[in-house]
């Protein structure tokens, strides 16, 4: 018999938990949902646009009645649960019906806090929490004129904006001098106030409400200083109070909320709690992103899966008022010892403030220009060291060549503006998909629309659209983000387990870490394959877990053919080599021959069956694979240098060849490119490479962490050395550190930003022993890597067979 799960609270956190549970264990429980509100679960966040007239109720339903019946969920809507008998494991509803449970989930949310002042029970005095509240506001707007909002926080301002849009004359009353003082500092709050005043809202700041006056319906509001203003509607938006009466009366331990452990269990392990009614590690939350993280943990635990725990969240806020661009995250009030970075342009209404502690972002307030909000938020959650970025941190990253997207403000984009250049997805497609399918996370938007699912350069824009459509930063805390849906473990923990537990195969990893599917998927399999081969060189490599390019040793093309790029060491070639390439191109009727951006030659349009024979011919002429297809060392670009150039200071070409001989064949977390320029004119573009060398008269400057591509990043200077031998040692050490430390598909540029240049200098420049150890480990791993895959698969080998059809009919 299936166990019985009863959920109390048919709201956002409760239903999200049920959805997550259905994903992982659809058959495990017989589910009953008890909901106070007489509706299916709707998107509470969207009550603001509903009030403003931008949405209809149908648009904001998250789970339709059909959804409940399709999943055999028994929905008891319209009646509150009145008591819980924990001994009998029974819930009694207000109408005396009883429901038995094996496990119980409390998801009762919270209630608006109503000020304990005279008149607070008059008709027309309401909170802003439910559909009914919105309906009474809209009714009031049709029959009355004066609205007073008590509370100048997020909710209060959204209510004020909505009521003004409904035609009321609105006054916002706030007890402090700073509106949204939970989210904004004085300066940003002033800008916001000015803007909202221009839009026609009135403000009474530093005003303490004493009483609400009226006979039956509210007529006026009186303040401590004696001032009275007319009011036909009073909305109390001074805060929320976790809804815990039911939990308390059943004897569960509560403080401000129902107190839960990291597995979201209350003091009675049969009873879980999730959402705004919860207090976790002393914190309660009032935004959906953390609640959704909690929901996942509860679902996994209910499904008896894995060991996911919830360890708290950092949140960010946006105000959903059209025309206001505002972002706030973390702790934006500086304390002693903190640094503040500030940018102000009051005339254009732009204000940006970052608070740094130990060179890490701990809080951010942005007004007027919020495009970098998601980026700061990410850095904050990753605890990125920003020492090296301080000069430019407040200036839009978008200016630094977000290729193809540049200077866009998402709010002002028309619906037909193309956002994702790879998949041709327009803004309208994205907003529609978000509404239609109730999407909340970047991953969901990706899988439904493909926006930002390819090259990823429009990720920030898509996040902005998501935020402006649903109102908030919905992403999970990234350093806790699991590798993929098959596991709850993030990258660093998988890496660590592989090393410490000596896991040397996919099966071993999947077993030890309790993977959900024994086979993994196309996301985790290549990552795990890389981590194993980086940790245990020469011991394991599963071709079936590699992306096609690394299995076919060529780049797959849109028509299923392949491209072939032989290595040309340091960009050098000879007439014989060129002749050999010409012969191959003739013999195999290669449709196109092109000089690549990486200083070598690409043969396009080769059929898979022809690859082994073509490789044999190239091998014979002395060529090896160029790995143009791999998460691997790609090319070493060079310039002519002192051999020929009148400005050359060192033999950059020769050094490039040596570096390529050192590093070729190496598998990497992502592609890895090098370059050597013979003088600071830098013709080989060494300062946008993963590892670049700029020769100068007195030696060699070593540069790291650059790339061209989607988001141009200029390298950081690692150090300067005197000899070629040192260049080689530093290069090997840096490469190995990256190979061991970075996450799969994390290129050096984001990796350097994540771990900080400091750390890299510490390991490689300041510590000679470590540097030599790293270089040594690189040498060891190269022993099993520098084997030409083309030779291994050349015509006549057994491996070549797999490139042919197994039969022809």
């Amino acid at each position, binding site marked *: 018999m299936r166990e019985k799960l009863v959920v109390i609270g048919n709201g956002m956190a409760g239903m999200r938990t049920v959805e997550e549970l259905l994903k992982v264990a659809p058959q495990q429980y017989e589910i009953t949902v008890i909901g106070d509100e007489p509706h299916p679960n709707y998107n509470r966040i969207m009550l603001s646009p509903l009030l403003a007239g931008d949405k209809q109720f149908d648009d904001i339903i998250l789970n339709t009645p059909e959804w409940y019946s399709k999943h055999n969920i028994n929905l008891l809507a319209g009646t509150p649960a009145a008591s819980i008998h924990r001994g009998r494991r029974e819930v009694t509803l207000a109408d005396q019906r009883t429901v038995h449970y094996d496990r119980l989930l409390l998801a009762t949310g919270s209630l608006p806090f109503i000020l304990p002042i005279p008149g607070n029970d008059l008709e027309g005095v309401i909170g802003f929490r439910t559909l009914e509240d919105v309906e009474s506001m809209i009714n009031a707007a049709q029959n009355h004129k004066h609205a007073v909002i008590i509370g100048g926080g997020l909710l209060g301002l959204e209510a004020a904006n909505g009521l003004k849009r409904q035609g009321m004359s609105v006054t916002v009353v706030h007890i402090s001098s700073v509106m949204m003082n939970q989210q904004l500092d004085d300066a940003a709050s002033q800008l916001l106030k000015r803007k909202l005043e221009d839009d026609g809202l009135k403000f009474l700041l530093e005003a303490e409400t004493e009483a609400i006056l009226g006979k039956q319906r509210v007529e006026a509001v009186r303040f401590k200083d004696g001032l009275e203003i007319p009011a036909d509607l009073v909305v109390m938006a001074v805060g929320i109070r976790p809804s815990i009466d039911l939990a308390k009366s059943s004897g569960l331990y509560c403080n401000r909320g129902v107190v839960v452990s990291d597995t979201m269990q209350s003091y009675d392990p049969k009873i879980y709690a999730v959402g705004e009614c919860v207090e976790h590690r002393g914190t309660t939350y009032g935004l959906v992103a953390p609640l959704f993280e909690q929901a996942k943990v509860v679902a996994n635990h209910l499904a008896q899966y894995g060991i996911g725990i919830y360890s708290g969240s950092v949140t960010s806020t946006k105000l959903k008022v059209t025309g206001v661009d505002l972002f706030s995250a973390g702790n934006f009030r500086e304390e002693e010892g903190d640094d503040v970075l500030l940018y102000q342009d009051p005339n254009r209404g732009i204000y940006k403030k970052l608070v740094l502690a130990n060179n890490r972002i701990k809080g951010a307030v942005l007004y007027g220009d919020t495009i970098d909000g998601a980026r700061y938020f990410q850095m904050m959650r990753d605890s990125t060291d920003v020492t090296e970025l301080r000069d430019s941190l407040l200036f839009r990253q978008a200016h630094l060549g977000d290729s193809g997207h540049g200077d866009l403000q998402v709010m002002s984009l028309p619906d037909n503006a193309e956002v994702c250049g790879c998949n041709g997805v327009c803004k309208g497609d994205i907003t529609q998909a978000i509404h239609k399918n109730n999407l909340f996370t970047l991953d969901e938007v990706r899988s439904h629309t493909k926006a930002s699912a390819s090259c990823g350069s429009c990720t920030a824009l898509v996040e902005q659209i998501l935020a402006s459509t649903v109102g908030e930063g919905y992403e999970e805390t990234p350093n806790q983000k699991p590798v993929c849906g098959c596991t709850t473990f993030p990258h660093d923990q998988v890496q660590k387990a592989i090393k410490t537990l000596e896991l040397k195969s996919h099966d071993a990893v999947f077993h030890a870490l309790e993977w959900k*599917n024994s*086979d993994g998927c*196309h996301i985790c399999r290549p990552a795990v394959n890389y981590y194993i081969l980086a940790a245990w060189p020469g011991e394991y490599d599963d071709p*079936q877990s590699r*992306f*096609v390019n690394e299995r076919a040793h060529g780049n797959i093309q849109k028509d*299923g053919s392949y491209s072939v790029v032989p290595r040309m060491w340091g960009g050098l070639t000879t007439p014989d080599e060129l002749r050999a390439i010409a012969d191959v191109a003739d013999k195999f009727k290669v449709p196109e021959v092109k000089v690549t951006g990486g200083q070598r030659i690409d043969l396009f349009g080769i059929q898979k069956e022809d690859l082994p024979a073509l490789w044999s011919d190239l091998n014979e002429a002395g060529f090896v694979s160029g790995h143009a297809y791999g998460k691997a060392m790609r090319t070493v670009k060079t310039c002519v240098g002192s051999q020929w150039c009148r400005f050359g200071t060192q033999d950059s070409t020769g050094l490039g060849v040596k570096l390529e001989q050192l590093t070729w064949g190496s598998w990497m977390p992502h592609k890895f490119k090098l370059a050597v320029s013979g003088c600071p004119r830098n013709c080989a573009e060494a300062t946008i490479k993963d590892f670049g060398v700029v020769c100068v008269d007195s030696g060699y400057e070593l540069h790291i962490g650059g790339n061209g591509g989607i988001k141009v990043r200029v390298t950081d200077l690692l150090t300067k050395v005197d000899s070629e031998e040192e260049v080689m040692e530093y290069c090997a050490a840096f490469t190995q550190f990256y190979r061991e430390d970075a996450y799969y598909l994390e290129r050096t540029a984001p990796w350097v930003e994540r771990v900080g240049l400091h750390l890299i200098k510490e390991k490689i420049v300041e510590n000679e022993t470590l540097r030599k150890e790293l270089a040594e480990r690189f040498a060891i791993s190269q022993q099993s890597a520098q084997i030409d895959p083309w030779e291994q698969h050349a015509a006549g080998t057994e491996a070549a067979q797999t490139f042919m059809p*197994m*039969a022809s009919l």
Partner: protein
Amino acid sequence: MNQPKRIEIGKPSQIPLRGSRTVSTDEGDIAIFRTAEETFFAVKDSCPHRQGPLSQGIVHGNRVTCPLHNWVIDLESGEATGPDKGCTPTYQIELEGDLLYLTQ
């Protein structure tokens, strides 16, 4: 329509575990899959999205991820999974003794 033909195509061991080999026919390639559980599937080697060669994808469970744009195709039904919509033809394949037979 021709009568369906049942043809021997080779041994399981010719196909890598969690992998695929193709069988070429006049109407294009058919991809033969061998899953971790030693189940065999035959589908047209052409993704419903933009005709990517499914035989080159990563095989997981009874699914394959297309190498071109990561659609995930269910090998049993040939249907795209998740939010993607589309279907690729499937064929009957049987293992008898140590030989695979394809019905076309």
